[in-house]
C-alpha cells in the first residue's frame, strides 16, 4: 500500500531523514516509534506531500507521490491525523467532520457524507453529544477523537496518526488505542507514530524504530517489544543480566 525507498527529506538545506525505507501492507497496523526529534513527523509530512523528498521515492498505491499536490494525495486515499489535533477550533464539531468529508462529497455526493457522519458518531458517541459545540472548547481527548473522525470521513485507504497520545490522560490514551484496534478490525490500514512505544507496539503488527532520521530497527511488533535495546531506550527498563 505504502512503499518508501531510500528517502531523504528535510527543511531547506537541512537533511533530517536519511535513507529511510519502509512499507505498509493493506490491513495492518504499523508503528513507528522514536524519541523527540527522531524526525517521525517529518516522515509523515513527506508522505502526505507537505514536504518534498530530496532523494528516493514514496509510492502510495503504486503511484510515486514526489511532486503530487497534498489535496491530490489526500483524494487518492491517504489521510493524516496531525500532531496536536489541529481541529478547526472556531467551528462546530459537526462542521469539522463535514469538512473531513470534503473529498467524499466531491466523489460520491452528500448522501454518502451523511452516512459516513453517522458512522463516525457511532465510533465516537461523545462527538454526537457535542456536535454543536465549538471544536476549540473540547477536551484534549475529545479533540483527538474529532481529529481522527475528521480524517476517517474521507474513507481513507491508509490512516496515518501522528502522536495520538500526546498530552492525554492514561485512561483516554487506552480508549484511543482501543479505537485504533477497532479500525483495523473494520479493514483499515494504519501507520501509527508514537513516543509511547509500549502502547503503540502493543497494538501493532509490525514496527520500526527511528532514531535521528534513520531506521535503526524493524520487525514484528512482539519482537521489538522483547528487544533489549528497545526496552532500554524506550520502555525505561534496564535488564540486569
Amino acid at each position: 500500500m505504502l512503499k518508501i525507498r531510500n528517502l531523504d527529506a528535510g527543511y531547506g538545506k537541512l537533511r533530517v531523514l536519511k535513507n529511510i525505507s519502509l512499507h505498509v501492507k493493506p490491513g495492518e497496523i504499523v508503528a513507528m516509534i522514536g524519541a523527540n526529534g527522531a524526525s517521525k513527523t517529518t516522515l509523515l509530512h513527506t508522505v502526505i506531500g507537505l514536504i518534498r523528498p530530496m532523494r528516493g521515492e514514496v509510492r502510495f498505491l503504486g503511484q510515486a507521490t514526489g511532486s503530487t499536490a497534498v489535496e491530490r494525495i489526500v483524494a487518492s486515499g491517504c489521510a493524516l491525523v496531525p500532531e496536536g489535533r489541529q481541529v478547526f477550533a472556531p467551528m462546530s464539531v459537526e462542521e469539522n467532520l463535514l469538512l473531513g468529508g470534503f473529498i467524499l462529497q466531491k466523489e460520491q455526493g452528500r448522501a454518502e457524507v451523511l452516512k459516513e457522519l453517522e458512522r463516525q458518531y457511532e465510533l465516537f458517541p461523545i462527538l454526537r453529544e457535542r456536535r454543536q459545540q465549538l471544536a476549540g472548547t473540547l477536551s484534549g481527548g475529545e479533540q483527538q477523537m474529532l481529529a481522527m473522525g475528521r480524517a476517517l470521513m474521507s474513507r481513507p485507504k491508509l490512516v496515518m496518526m501522528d502522536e495520538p497520545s500526546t498530552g492525554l490522560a492514561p485512561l483516554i490514551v487506552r480508549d484511543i488505542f482501543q479505537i485504533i484496534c477497532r479500525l483495523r478490525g473494520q479493514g483499515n490500514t494504519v501507520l501509527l507514530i508514537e513516543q509511547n512505544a509500549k502502547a503503540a507496539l502493543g497494538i501493532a503488527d509490525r514496527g520500526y524504530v527511528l532514531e535521528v532520521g534513520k531506521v535503526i530497527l524493524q520487525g514484528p511488533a512482539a519482537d521489538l517489544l522483547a528487544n533489549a535495546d528497545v526496552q532500554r531506550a524506550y520502555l525505561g527498563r534496564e535488564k540486569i543480566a
Partner: protein
Amino acid sequence: MSLDLFFQYLFAGLTYGAIYAIVAIGFNIIYNTTGIINFAQGEFVMLGGMISISLMEFIPLGYAIAAAVLVTMGIGAVIEILFIRWLESPSVLRMIIITIGISILLRESALHIWGESIRSLPYFYGNEITTFNLGSVHISPQVVWVIAACAVMMAGLSLFFKSTPIGREMRACAANRTAALLCGINTRNMVTLSFMLSAGIGALAGCVMSPITYTQYDSGASLAIKGFTVAILGGLGNSLAAVAAGVLLGIIEAFSVTVVPLAFQDAIAIAILLLILFVKPHGIFGSSEAARLKDF
C-alpha cells in the same frame, strides 16, 4: 447642538461608517485566508465606481453596476493568480509589499484610462437635492441606498460563510490552513476566491457610494487607510467587530466637524489608527491572546 443637527451628523456618520465597514470586511476576508493585508483593497472600490461609470454610457445603471462588480472580481482573481498564487511560502512582509505594488499599478492604470477628472454615477433615485424627511431630519435617498446595500452585503456574507459548503471551506482555511489541506481542500483556490469576494464587495460599495463621494483615480488610497483603521480598530479578521468599528469611526468623523475644521477629517482617522497601534494593537474587540498568535 440642536437635535436636528445631531441626527443629521449621525446619518452622515452612519453612511460613511457603513462604507468603511465594507472596505474593512474586504481586508478581513483576505487576511483570514492568507494572513496578509491587501493594500489594494481601496483600489477595488475605485475600480467598481470607475468601471460602472464607463459602462453607464452603454447599458442601464443596474446592469452597469452588476457588470462592474463582475469585472472587478475578475481583476481580483487575475491579480491573485499573477502575483500571489505562484509564490512558494512567501513571507508576510513580501506579500504586503506586493499588494502595495499592485495598488500603485491599479491607480496608475486608472489614471491612464480615465484621467484625473472626477466622475460619479447619477443618483439611483431622484437627484442631489431630493430628500425625504424623517421627523425634521433631511435624508438623501442615496444614503438609504448605501446603508441598505452595505447591510445586505453583510447579511449575505455572513449567510455565505455560515451555511454554504464553500463558505465553510473558506472558514476552514482561515482557522487552520494545514488542516484544510489535509481535508483535501485546495487552499490556493480558496485564496483566489477570497480575492474575488473582496474585490466584488469593494466594487459594489464603490458603485453605491459614487453619487455621494464621487470617484477619482486616486480615491482608493484614502479609503484603504480608513478601512485599514477600522479593521485594526475592530481587531483584524473579525468582521462583526469591523461593522461596529466602522460605524464608530464614521460617527467620530462626522461629529468632529463641530470641533475641528473639515480639512482635518482625514487626520482624525490616522490619529485613531496610530493611537490604536500604540495602545491596543489587537483592536478594541480583539483579545490580546489571539493577537499574539498572529504574524504581526
